[in-house]
């Protein structure tokens, strides 16, 4: 077995389910891999451990950081994208029911959000930075302000707000409004792709199979493993996350439907790149194609595991 370290960008949760599934059900082992999942944390320090070789694969959040890597000459690239849609959402109080209503609202946005998707909201829809107030991953200020909207993760904040504040917030999935990045990508080092493409291929394939089994098979053991890595995790939260991932087609929709989970296309990449150029997040002359390769995806691996209904 080849020893492989895979770093995530957050603590263990259902959004990492496919990988845990592939670990616990022996899929990785079957592909000759001994995978250790290294959970990230609030600071996503795992990012830099990939280029220096302390990790072999890293779970990227969206394509912005992949573009930045090209810009900063960091020798990493995206080899698969397990989320077709970024689960990034804006939530709002009932009463502010339309996307347009958000423009008049106070928006609670994190510093990272401000540096990324919010720039797109500004350039694409005319939001302004002056309506932003700080968000530190605690929704209390949002709940307290009936005129506020807030960033969130499709699978987390809406549930927390509903459970604690007793109302169902409106949920606007940015992907549905044109934020066309892939998410939960698999990044690796350029030299690994060149010197050991077989290893990369095996990891991408086994991970895709893991995702199919996690979404459509028996995921009880994977969930146990998640809860082992993150004792804060609850069954309610996991169930909610899985349901939302399915409902919104986060993992398995669009290109993934026929090319298999993990699918990427040049068109989507170009579309998102252009939007980021317009938002001023990346320069127009960036050779963004260096940020990914389609060499390992779109092969339909695992499509057979999908229920036929």
């Amino acid at each position: 077995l080849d020893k492989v370290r895979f770093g995530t960008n957050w603590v263990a949760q259902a959004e990492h389910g496919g990988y845990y599934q592939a670990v616990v059900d022996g899929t990785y082992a079957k592909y000759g891999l001994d995978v250790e999942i290294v959970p990230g944390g609030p600071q996503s320090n795992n990012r830099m451990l990939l280029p220096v070789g302390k990790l072999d694969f890293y779970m990227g959040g969206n394509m912005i950081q992949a573009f930045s890597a090209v810009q900063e000459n960091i020798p990493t690239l995206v080899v698969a994208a397990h989320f077709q849609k970024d689960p990034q959402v804006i939530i709002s109080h009932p009463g502010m029911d339309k996307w347009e209503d958000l423009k008049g609202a106070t928006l609670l946005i994190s510093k990272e959000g401000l540096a990324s998707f919010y720039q797109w909201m500004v350039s694409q829809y005319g939001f302004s930075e002056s309506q932003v107030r700080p968000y530190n991953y605690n929704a209390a200020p949002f709940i307290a302000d009936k005129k506020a909207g807030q960033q969130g993760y499709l699978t987390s904040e809406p549930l927390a707000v509903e459970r604690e504040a007793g109302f169902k917030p409106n949920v606007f999935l940015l992907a549905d409004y044109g934020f066309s990045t892939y998410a939960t990508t698999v990044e690796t080092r350029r030299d690994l792709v060149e010197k050991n493409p077989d290893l990369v291929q095996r990891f991408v394939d086994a991970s895709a199979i893991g995702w199919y089994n996690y979404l459509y098979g028996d995921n009880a053991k994977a969930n146990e493993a998640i809860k082992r890595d993150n004792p804060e995790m609850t069954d309610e939260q996991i169930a909610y996350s899985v349901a939302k991932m399915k409902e919104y087609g986060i993992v398995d929709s669009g290109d993934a439907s026929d090319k298999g989970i993990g699918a990427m296309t040049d068109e989507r990449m170009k579309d998102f790149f252009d939007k980021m150029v317009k938002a001023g997040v990346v320069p127009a002359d960036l050779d963004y194609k260096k940020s990914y390769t389609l060499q390992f995806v779109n092969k339909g691996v695992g499509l057979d595991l999908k229920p036929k209904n």
Partner: protein
Amino acid sequence: MSASTDDTPATSGPSRMDATRLAAILLPVAILLLAVAGWEAAVQLNEIPPYILPAPSQIAATLVKDWPVLFGSLLVTLRITFLALFAAVVGGVLLAILFAQSRWIELSFFPFAVILQVTPIVAIAPLLLIYLEPGTAVLVCAFLVAFFPILSNTALGLASADHNLRDLFDLYGASRFKQLIYLRLPAALPYFLGGLRIGGGLALIGAIVAEIAAGTAGQGSGLAFRIIESGYRLNIPRMFAALFLISVAGILIFLLFTALSHLLLHRWHESARKREA
């Protein structure tokens, strides 16, 4: 408590003394209880929802319910705290001693100490993680938060040794080392202990901040992770239960060092000596 400064009222007899001592414990407790009661009332009367500010009663209930998880995390945080504080004391005192050797050394290296103090550890944690094990990186971060007050106060204390006594030591041909051991360090003690009282709290904060900046999440994680995760999940009573534990730990550490100060200083230093009535 850093400073039992007041003219204690004259006491006539041991029973009065004991009453004073009892009051010294009861009064702060009573005031704390009063503050808690006020908080409870404010929450109840204004119907502040728990996700904004939970009532003390609810925090207490959460504390009991989640005790195993929270207690485990508390131990992790306390372990980092004390390791970091230990490193901060050793590092801070050794550096202060080094600086006291010569004004040149002090002038040349104090800027580096300042740089270490003011560099946000969130920023350098990724760099540390590249070269260090996560456990070590957390410790380094917590150390960085805590060491400066100890260094700075100890350096001040070492410099404050009475010049006449320094002359006396010179006269007896005391080596630099003996001068340090028998004169400079004892003279620096009140200042060092003051630094320790500041550093104790900072080591605790440091342990929290370091866990956020460089800690591995998941099992074996400390209170910082509980706080962030609870905040994220809007489980605010649990977050406050964790904050409560941090506060209690902070107060106990402070009391510990205050007691230590009293023990070491009460026979000779103004700050701890009772004024003769």
